């Protein structure tokens, strides 16, 4: 964990609900936290460099964009092969996220998770078949979990709003 100054804390809090809808959003943030636009920019650059903020950007509702087939593809990869496979999966441009997670044998043997967001199921299944073949995973247990209903999609809240 990284020490965060009180100005940083104020900036992160002000940004929690999103960037202000203004043509000079950093000036607006500065007004809210009592700092200049240049200070806000310098602090944000630092927070990005430290990795406290991953990036400033937009998040789309993928279903609204026609990406209705969202699959979590899970694999039971032997532990010694797993780091290599995580890196290989990440090189496919249709893989949008890739993580190693805790498994629960025997009920849940899968340790490597990757997400594929596709416009239709058929394409996603072809991409999974392509992964199995190119990475030599024909013998490896896997499962494809398509998403059904979405009950909630919002950003995480890390700061109490004042």
């Amino acid at each position, binding site marked *: 964990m990284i020490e965060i100054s009180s100005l940083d804390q104020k900036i992160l809090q002000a940004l929690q609900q999103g960037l202000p*809808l203004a043509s000079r959003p950093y000036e607006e943030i500065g007004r809210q936290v009592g700092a200049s636009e240049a200070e806000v920019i310098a602090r944000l650059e630092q927070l990005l460099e430290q990795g406290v903020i991953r990036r400033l*950007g937009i998040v789309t509702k993928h279903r609204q964009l026609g990406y209705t087939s969202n699959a979590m593809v899970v694999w039971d990869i032997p532990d010694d092969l797993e780091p290599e496979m995580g890196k290989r999966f990440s090189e496919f441009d249709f*893989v949008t996220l890739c993580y190693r*997670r805790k498994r629960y044998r025997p009920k849940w043997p899968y340790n490597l998770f990757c997400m594929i967001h596709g416009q239709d199921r058929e394409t996603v299944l072809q991409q999974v078949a392509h992964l199995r073949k190119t990475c030599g995973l024909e013998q490896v247990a896997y499962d494809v979990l398509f*998403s059904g209903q979405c009950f909630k999609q919002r950003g995480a809240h890390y700061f109490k709003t004042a």
Partner: protein
Amino acid sequence: MDELDRLIINELQDGIPITPHPFAEIASVAGVTEEEIVSRIGQLLERKILSRFGPMYNAERLGGGLTLAAMKIPQEDFEQVAEALDELPEVAHNYERQHELNMWFVLATETPEQIAATIETIEKNTGYPVYNMPKHQEYFIGLKLEV
């Protein structure tokens, strides 16, 4: 969605510049004013095509807790459990998935310790066990959807 909406979505997924006029470049590409870009972003948020405009935090670096968890819920209780999760501010996403483990949700808390407490609350309130699947290693986060 028109051309301008698409341009905004495709360009800004890569990041919003941290400069005094972050929308000047995209405005000049599109041949519109910065104010028009901003007002269009507002409309995309209102139409719920965008769910967020701003920073993506790194929970761990902030000292927060973050995990993915799953439960196996019989169909007849599904709606009720979904509603119970919806009421908890710690639940950031909740998806139904087609599997024996059919409810999948992300928990985000201010401290790592609160993850266990939240899971306990969920188990107590719903009567179903929670499979906590914390991330051990991150290989790639590159979610970008072209439109």
